[in-house]
């Protein structure tokens, strides 16, 4: 790799939008995965044109680039590896709007978008818990989901068109979202997205249940999934419940987008969600800071939950969608954990992505598929080198 020609890069983005200050590089060396890498510089581009020029320069000089949104990746996806950080946060404009779509630049924060849309009683319904900071580009690159995935699916399901700059420097507008969603910045920089919007639900309500066994829990989930008015089916495992001073049973929370549920007032609904959303803090404080997010097929969920129970691994998650969040102690051996995920025909990640931390657990077939795409869109391997594959 050659030395950075900072003057050249500065001429592209302007002095205000590039830094090599050691403090700045330290701050950008990490993301929410708490793993430290090394950044050579940080650049805040403001246009797609600037990005193509930076990519052209990187190809010529064999410089690596790590795209970054809000840096909430839980798998070190945005951690630099002797690379330039391309932080898209300043590309945050709404560029076009129709009655049921909105086109935004990739650095737009989801919560800002939804604050804007709510004025028209609309919203973008895929809402990860990091929505107050996560960017649309980061959400598409990881194909983020959220608590209401059972009804609304993933970010790609609500995206009509994207504009990207490939590793080769080509600007492409495409409706083939699945070609690029979930590829975590290893093929292209997402610069713009046309997103579908929907009306805010007129009413929501909640019902909660308790079960003694994983089998009873899964049976109920199966039944509930037939009801199309349900937007969220969340559970909390017995070990986790006991840490919240609740009965050590499987607790199920169902959110309806009508008044079917037993808890109908805003206070009751907020109280129920608060308990679910406060889990992270309780589990971190109890010594389980790491989070895994395997996706398990419905028929194997009960067996997987029983295995977790035997191992004393606290868990909770979007059970309606098959995502089981497991909280892990820092010294826990994950090899056996992922062997069990595989034995239960599960996917390594249901929503957080692969990044650096999970790449040793994904199947070779997926790696081969990604390598083929890499050859097509980023043959010089300048984008997010070392991630996923």
């Amino acid at each position, binding site marked *: 790799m050659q030395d950075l020609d900072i003057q050249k890069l500065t001429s592209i983005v302007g002095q205000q939008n590039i830094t090599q200050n050691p*403090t700045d590089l*330290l*701050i950008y060396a*990490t*993301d*929410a995965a*708490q793993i430290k890498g090394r950044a050579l510089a940080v650049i805040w581009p403001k246009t797609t044109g600037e990005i193509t020029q930076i990519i052209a320069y990187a190809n010529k000089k064999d410089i690596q680039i790590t795209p970054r949104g809000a840096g909430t990746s839980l798998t070190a996806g945005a951690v630099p590896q002797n690379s330039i950080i391309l932080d898209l946060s300043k590309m945050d404009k709404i560029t076009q709007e129709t009655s049921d779509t909105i086109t935004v630049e990739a650095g737009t924060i989801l919560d800002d978008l939804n604050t804007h849309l709510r004025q028209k009683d609309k919203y973008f319904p895929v809402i990860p818990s990091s929505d107050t900071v996560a960017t649309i580009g980061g959400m598409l690159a990881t194909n983020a989901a959220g608590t209401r995935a059972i009804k609304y699916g993933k970010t790609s399901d609500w995206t009509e068109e994207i504009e990207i700059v490939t590793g080769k420097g080509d600007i492409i507008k495409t409706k083939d979202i699945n070609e690029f969603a979930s590829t975590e910045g290893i093929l292209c920089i997402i610069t713009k997205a046309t997103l579908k919007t929907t009306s805010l639900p007129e009413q929501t309500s909640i019902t909660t249940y308790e079960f003694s066994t994983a089998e009873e829990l899964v049976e109920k989930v199966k039944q509930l999934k037939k009801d199309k008015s349900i937007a969220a089916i969340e559970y909390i495992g017995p070990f986790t419940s006991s840490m919240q001073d609740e009965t050590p049973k499987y607790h199920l929370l169902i959110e309806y987008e009508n008044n079917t549920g037993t808890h109908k007032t805003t206070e009751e609904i907020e109280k129920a969600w608060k308990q679910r959303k406060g889990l992270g803090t309780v589990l971190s404080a109890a010594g389980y800071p790491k989070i895994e997010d395997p996706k398990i097929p419905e028929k194997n969920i009960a067996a997987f939950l029983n295995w977790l129970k035997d191992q004393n691994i606290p868990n909770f998650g979007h059970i309606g969608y098959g995502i089981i969040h497991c909280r892990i102690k820092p010294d826990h051996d994950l090899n056996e954990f992922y062997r069990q995920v595989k034995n239960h025909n599960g996917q390594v990640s249901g929503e957080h992505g692969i990044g650096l931390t999970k790449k040793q657990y994904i199947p070779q077939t997926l790696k081969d598929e990604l390598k083929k795409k890499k050859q097509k869109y980023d043959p010089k391997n300048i984008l997010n080198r070392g991630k996923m594959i």
Partner: protein
Amino acid sequence: MTEEKKPTLKDCTLCGLCKSNCPVFRATKQETKGARARAILIKEDMLNEIILQCTLCASCKIECPEEIDLPEEIRKARQKLIESGKETQANKIMIDNIRKYGNPFGKQVAGKIPKELYCC
């Protein structure tokens, strides 16, 4: 009854949620100017002017899922900076003016110079 332990920056998971309403991040859109940057620098004991670029609005404290009192940590870090002689020129001038004139602007105004100095 055991007293509940107050979360500290040791409990910080670097989740980044504290920057969501951080006015300095919102104005600059640079991670280096936001609340998580200050959490990182204090954790790493690398105190510098970024610690001073904060309004102490406490929005980060409200957003933090770990319930960490980041503004309090920033206050302590500022104290350390001042003790080691690192403060901004503007700050020095203002303090000198308060001592001399009883106001930060350096103009003699009517009224008494206070015996004690207060700050937020």
